[in-house]
């Protein structure tokens, strides 16, 4: 969080929405809810009346005549008899009456009941909307009371260049990963899905990071699939730093990013990361990339070179490469430390995790990274 102060603006939420204002707004919305509730109760009362009337109209023609007490004025009744029990004069509204039989009357009443039901529905929907609004206002009010600040950062273009070098670095990890990864056919499948996701993401994020994504896609085509995945992995590390601490496997990760993750749950772990990487939020990435930049830049000048190194190392000696990638990964925390608050803890976790990390458990480094970034 601290690094954002350097390049962004920090506005206290209280200056934008004073506490009293937020509370006032919440109160107004709540009043509106109360009004709607009253209306809802009224309509419900009508519906109950209507149902009673339907029952009565149903029952009346069962007998030829009924003995009743006829109201006479306001205070008096006298005994009388209802005859013609199947003839109703129904008020249609606006002073119009129609002569109807019991059955026809019931039909009319039921139509009215339906229109009232729809009124109830719309009122309920209205109340729901208003409640959401009220909870929002209340949340704002409490946040303001807590002294929350809004942090804004501009998206910096240099990202894309750094992103490349970053991906270059990532490729180094590839063989290490690749040892445990399944055959190429599966990769192709995953690639296709990833591309799709990337497109989706691009559209969703208004093309903010299109340069970067495009490049990484291009890389993938030329490079080993392992490289691609690892790259994405790394990206996901970088971008998803917002994830909570302490989780070391991707399942948890999936859970913590529910919204974005939902659609990809069926995909393999690596894919998961890949898609995550694609989804990265610009802001997070920005910070990250900055911190990662130096390390990555130094080993590899361009994205082409890393690619080569990846391939060769893979064919020659996977173990060695994995060793190397390990080192470079370890270098990560060091560069990041200048920013992150709780690196101390997380880096410790990370080192322990990395010691047990095997090729197939590539996900672990990622989440470790995330923790440490937190």
């Amino acid at each position: 969080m601290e690094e954002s102060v350097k390049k962004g603006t920090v506005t206290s939420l209280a200056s934008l929405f004073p506490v009293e204002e937020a509370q006032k707004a919440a109160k107004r919305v709540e009043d509106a809810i109360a009004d709607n509730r009253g209306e809802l109760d009224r309509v419900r009362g009508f519906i109950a009346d209507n149902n009673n009337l339907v029952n009565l109209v149903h029952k009346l023609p069962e007998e030829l005549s009924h003995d009743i007490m006829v109201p006479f004025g306001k205070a008096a009744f006298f005994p009388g008899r209802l005859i013609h029990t199947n003839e109703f004069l129904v008020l249609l509204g606006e002073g119009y009456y129609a002569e109807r039989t019991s059955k026809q009357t019931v039909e009319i009443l039921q139509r009215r009941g339906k229109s009232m039901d729809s009124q109830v529905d719309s009122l309920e929907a209205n109340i729901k909307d208003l409640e959401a609004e009220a909870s929002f206002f209340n949340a704002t009010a409490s946040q303001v009371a807590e002294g929350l600040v809004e942090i804004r950062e501009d998206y910096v273009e240099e990202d894309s260049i750094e992103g490349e070098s970053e991906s270059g670095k990532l490729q180094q990890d590839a063989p290490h990963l690749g040892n445990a990864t399944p055959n190429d056919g599966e990769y192709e499948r995953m690639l296709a899905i990833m591309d799709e996701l990337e497109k989706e993401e691009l559209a969703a994020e208004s093309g903010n990071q299109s340069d970067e994504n495009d490049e990484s896609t291009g890389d993938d085509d030329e490079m080993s699939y392992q490289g691609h995945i690892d790259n994405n992995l790394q990206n996901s590390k970088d971008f998803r730093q917002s994830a909570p601490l302490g989780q070391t496997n991707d399942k948890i990760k999936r859970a913590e990013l529910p919204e974005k993750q939902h659609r990809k749950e069926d995909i393999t772990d690596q894919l998961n990361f890949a898609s995550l990487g694609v989804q990265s939020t610009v802001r997070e990435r920005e910070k990250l990339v900055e911190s990662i930049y130096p390390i990555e830049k130094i080993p590899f000048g361009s994205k082409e070179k890393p690619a080569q190194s990846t391939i060769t190392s893979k064919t020659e000696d996977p173990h060695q490469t994995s060793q190397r990638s390990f080192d470079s990964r370890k270098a990560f925390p060091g560069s990041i430390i200048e920013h992150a608050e709780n690196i101390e803890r997380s880096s410790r976790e990370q080192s322990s995790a990395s010691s047990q990390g095997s090729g197939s458990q590539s996900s672990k480094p990622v989440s470790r990274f995330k923790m440490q970034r937190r």
Partner: protein
Amino acid sequence: MSSSNLRDLQRELENKANDLSKLQKEIAKNHQMRKKYTIQLGENELVLKELDLLKEDANVYKLIGPVLVKQDLAEANANVRKRIEYISAELKRLDATVQDLEEKQNSKKDTILKLQQRIQSLQSGKGKA
């Protein structure tokens, strides 16, 4: 000199504020009328629907004052349609007036704001002097 000026301004402000409150009252009245007409429109539409569902030989009555007057179904139907037309036209008219009134209200608010600012600046000027 400036004190009389200030008094003038304050009187003007008062007048404008009165005008504004009058406008607001009118707007509220219009809104109420509008609500009433909307309800009537809904009721008439309901009646029309029911009348459409009636068979041609059905007896239809119209309550006029204290008596029920028998009416032809076709006649009743035409009457209701006409009434709906009238109400719709009335609603449109009310919408237009409300919009007009709201525009007036906004301009009044602006002028009042300006007046207030002027008074404030005059007062602060006086305070310095």
